[in-house]
């Protein structure tokens, strides 16, 4: 591949990453601020952004650190909060097949937002492998920088940022729309929203992601025969 494609790819990846720059930057700062309040400096915040790299989990981690939680409790809570990532990664096995040395990092970097963004219909002119890597690295950099900045600034704040986390909601809405507009199959969307709503009602707002993921998996496997066009692929593996 040539230089021109690389530069174009980098530019496109940066454009795609702008919503996360805003979202991760500000959410990361909120996390850093909590860390500072709990008595941890920006190095702690930055290292957590580097080796944990998960919004909800890091917010919960502040509580665990402040309360000197046991390692067993920590492990169980992490499993519960991050279990959905197993499903994200499983569904990327095929797409991230030929990514060479970047492969482990690409899987590691699959946050909710990055997972959503790398699954957008790609620009035909970008080098997709490079695009995914650029985007993954940029997103994590924003997150780490946000974490560290928040911890450095402490409670200093330029303006009232209440509600800025809606940027992530808006990001998911836009990506969802984009997928609906470019697809001719809507049952995955119905299964996803339906399972999530059902599990939200049954399990409550803090514990519904894992059951929802399982229900989604079951639902998608249930409609597999119908969705896969070639009729000879009826074997269930």
């Amino acid at each position, binding site marked *: 591949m040539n230089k021109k494609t690389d530069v174009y790819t980098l530019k496109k990846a940066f454009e795609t990453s702008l919503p996360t720059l805003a979202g991760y930057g500000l959410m990361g700062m909120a996390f850093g601020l909590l860390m500072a309040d709990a008595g941890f400096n920006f190095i702690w915040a930055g290292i957590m952004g580097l080796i*944990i790299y998960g919004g909800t989990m890091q917010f919960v981690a502040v509580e665990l650190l402040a309360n000197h939680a046991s390692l067993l409790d920590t492990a169980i809570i992490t*499993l519960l909060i991050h279990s959905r990532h197993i*499903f994200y*990664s499983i569904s990327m*096995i095929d797409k991230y097949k030929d990514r060479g040395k970047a492969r482990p990092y690409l899987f*590691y970097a699959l946050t909710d937002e990055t997972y959503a963004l790398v699954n957008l219909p790609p620009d035909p002119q970008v080098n997709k492998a490079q695009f995914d890597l650029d985007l993954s690295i940029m997103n994590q950099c924003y997150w780490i920088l946000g974490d560290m900045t928040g911890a450095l600034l402490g409670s200093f704040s330029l303006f009232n940022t209440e509600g800025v986390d809606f940027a992530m909601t808006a990001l998911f809405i*836009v990506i969802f*729309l984009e997928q609906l507009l470019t697809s001719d199959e809507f049952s995955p969307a119905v299964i996803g929203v339906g399972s999530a709503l059902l599990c939200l009602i049954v399990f409550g707002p803090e514990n519904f992601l894992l059951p929802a*993921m399982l229900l989604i998996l079951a639902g*998608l496997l249930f409609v597999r025969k119908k969705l896969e066009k070639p009729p000879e692929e009826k074997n269930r593996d």
Partner: protein
Amino acid sequence: MIDQTHSILIILVISVITILLRVGPAWLFPPDKPTPKVLVYLSKVMPMAVIGMLIVYCFRNTQFFSFPYGLPELIGALVTVVSFLLKRSTMLSILLGTVTYMYLIQVVFV
């Protein structure tokens, strides 16, 4: 000092489990072996379902049955959707939706 060691251990436990969950599947299904067909199928249908779930997740704590009846969220989402359908600009829609929502919760529905 014991305190700090325990903090480091907490962070390491979270990190290791997170890495296992995210990268583990990549080790279980190495790229030199053919991908099971069911995973090829899931890679096509899972993202749309997951993003639908994440949208529900974003609204999980919204109060629809008491003031302000989820109006800031609904209006913010509506602005995002309509502006995207009109202009097809991801950045613009996210910006408009977020600013609308922030204005609504900070100024209108206080």
